[in-house]
């Protein structure tokens, strides 16, 4: 294949991968922005999303319904967890507590999924209208990945506009700036936190459903994804939404092209990138150092 075609295909590969990564990372970073916690359970919520999506698709035969149901279910789970546990810890405000609670949740979730769905993997087949390929510069490219790119783009724009333009978005940014102040102004900060946490979990679930047709739903999927999400959030800057977009793109490109040119060092490249950025900007690209 000629070089241009190659570049195009690889870039599109990277964009489609970035799309999935974005769904996990943006939730993680929003949650951090609002409550200054690193949600260890985020990968498990991503996994839960995939499994719920599978069951929905299996029951209704509709991938699209799965895209709607999974985020709702997982978002609800997230909000419940926030209300039950996290909300009681804010006054304490020590990082260790959050780490343990979310870590505990991750362990419990993984095990619960094994008990409910069994150890076997479950596939969500690509919806028929997204099967097959389109030919770009006489290179075949999967329709499904194009769909991911578009869907990811829309989600990113939507969330961004929501944060920038709407009153709720303003509120969220305000809370991440100075929760006490917002509280003092008579807004129910606790409510905002619960909602944002739920939203973050819902986004992760979306990512899970979208990933399922490419990797199927299986027990190991949480661990492999959470670490990428960490790296992205750190590169972009903890709590920075735009940062999570940029981070997703950087990591995706690093992985796609890294795997092509340095297959032996495929793993290392992402972390080298992260190191370099952190050394230059300890707070991440768009973040301020905590």
């Amino acid at each position, binding site marked *: 294949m000629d070089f241009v075609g190659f570049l195009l295909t690889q870039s599109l590969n990277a964009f489609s991968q970035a799309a999935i990564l974005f769904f996990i990372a943006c939730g993680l970073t929003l949650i951090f922005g609002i409550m200054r916690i690193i949600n260890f359970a985020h990968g498990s919520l991503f996994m839960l999303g995939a499994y719920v999506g599978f069951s929905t698709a299996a029951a209704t035969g509709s991938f699209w319904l799965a895209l709607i149901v999974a985020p709702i279910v997982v978002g609800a789970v997230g909000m419940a967890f926030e209300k039950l546990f996290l909300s009681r810890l804010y006054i304490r405000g020590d990082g260790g507590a959050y780490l*343990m*609670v979310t870590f*505990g949740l991750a*362990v419990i979730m993984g095990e619960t999924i094994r008990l409910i769905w069994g150890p076997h993997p479950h596939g969500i087949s690509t919806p028929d209208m997204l099967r097959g390929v389109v030919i770009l510069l006489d290179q075949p490219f999967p329709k499904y990945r194009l769909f991911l790119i578009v869907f990811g783009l829309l989600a990113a724009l939507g969330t961004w506009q929501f944060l920038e333009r709407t009153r709720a978005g303003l509120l969220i940014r305000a809370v991440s700036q100075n929760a006490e102040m917002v509280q003092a102004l008579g807004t129910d900060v606790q409510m905002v936190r619960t909602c944002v946490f739920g939203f973050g979990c819902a986004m992760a679930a979306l990512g899970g459903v979208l990933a399922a047709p490419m990797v199927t739903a299986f027990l190991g999927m949480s661990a492999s994804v959470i670490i990428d999400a960490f790296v992205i959030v750190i590169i972009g800057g903890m709590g920075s939404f735009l940062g999570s977009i940029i981070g997703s793109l950087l990591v995706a490109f690093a992985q796609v092209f890294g795997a092509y040119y340095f297959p032996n060092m495929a793993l290392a490249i992402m*972390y080298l990138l992260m*190191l370099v950025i952190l050394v230059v900007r300890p707070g991440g690209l768009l973040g301020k150092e905590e």
Partner: protein
Amino acid sequence: MNWKTGFVITAFVACLVPLVSPNYMMTVIIEALIFGLFAMSLDLLVGYTRLYSFGHVAAYGLGAYTSALLLLHFNLPLPIAIILAVAISMAIATPIAWVCTRTHGVSFAMLTLAFAQLGYAILYGFKDFTGGSNGLAGIPRPEGPFGLDFFQSKIGYFYMVLFCLLGSYLLCRALVNSPFGAVLAGIRENEPKTAALGYNTRAYKRIVAIAAYGFGALAGALYAPFAGFASPELFFWLISGTVLIMVIVGGSGTLIGPIIGGVFFLMLENQLSEVTSLWPLIFGSIFIAFVMFAPQGIWGLLTARFTKPPVQPGSDRDGEAARAHS
């Protein structure tokens, strides 16, 4: 200084363990002690300097692999190999510490994580040297120096590990109670103020980070020859998370707490997984329960009824005290 009596009693009790515990328990007990040592090394950072390291597994893996390679390629006497492994690990840790201590808080956590993951990736990068995913198997425990070979038996190894653990505890305790340790507490509480008092805080952070790596590496260096192999799992980032949990569950900033936390949880996991495959559920619940109901950790619980509540300021200013609190 009644803690000394306590220490002696504890050490004595520990020495009796092989006599009372069945032989099959010794394996897990030894690993538990090693893990306790590992957790304690992290407490230097987390509990005393409030530097949350997310990549402390790097210290463990580094120690394990260096000792493994030394033993496999040079057939050194075991104690020598372990000491060398610690030294080399600390040498490698020096530049890492230098970079990481430029930051604090979340950035520090993530920088350490990045370095740990880099190490993990490098294991796969240099297969011929590290064995890649196979790891290194068949690590010997050569005898000597002076024909010492007690550590070739399991009981003997127990005493060697116990010696290292108790020794490291004394060192760490001395460290945190030394003038140096006082400065660490200052950095933990208020770094800018500590600098304003005339301390070069970065130098202190660097030193404590290297020390923490050293003790962590010791744990790893003890593990590899005991298990007889080293594999990338010893470098897996999840262990960093687990050990951090052990420190907090045990009671951070107490040295003893993390040891108990590490020992307790490794044994608990091992025994629970014997009786039920649901053990992860129980495990996760325990974590959450601790955060919710016993934030002070195991050691906190054990000592709670002995420590007096803080002396209250004179009643005339209780109101202000309350205000100062909020």
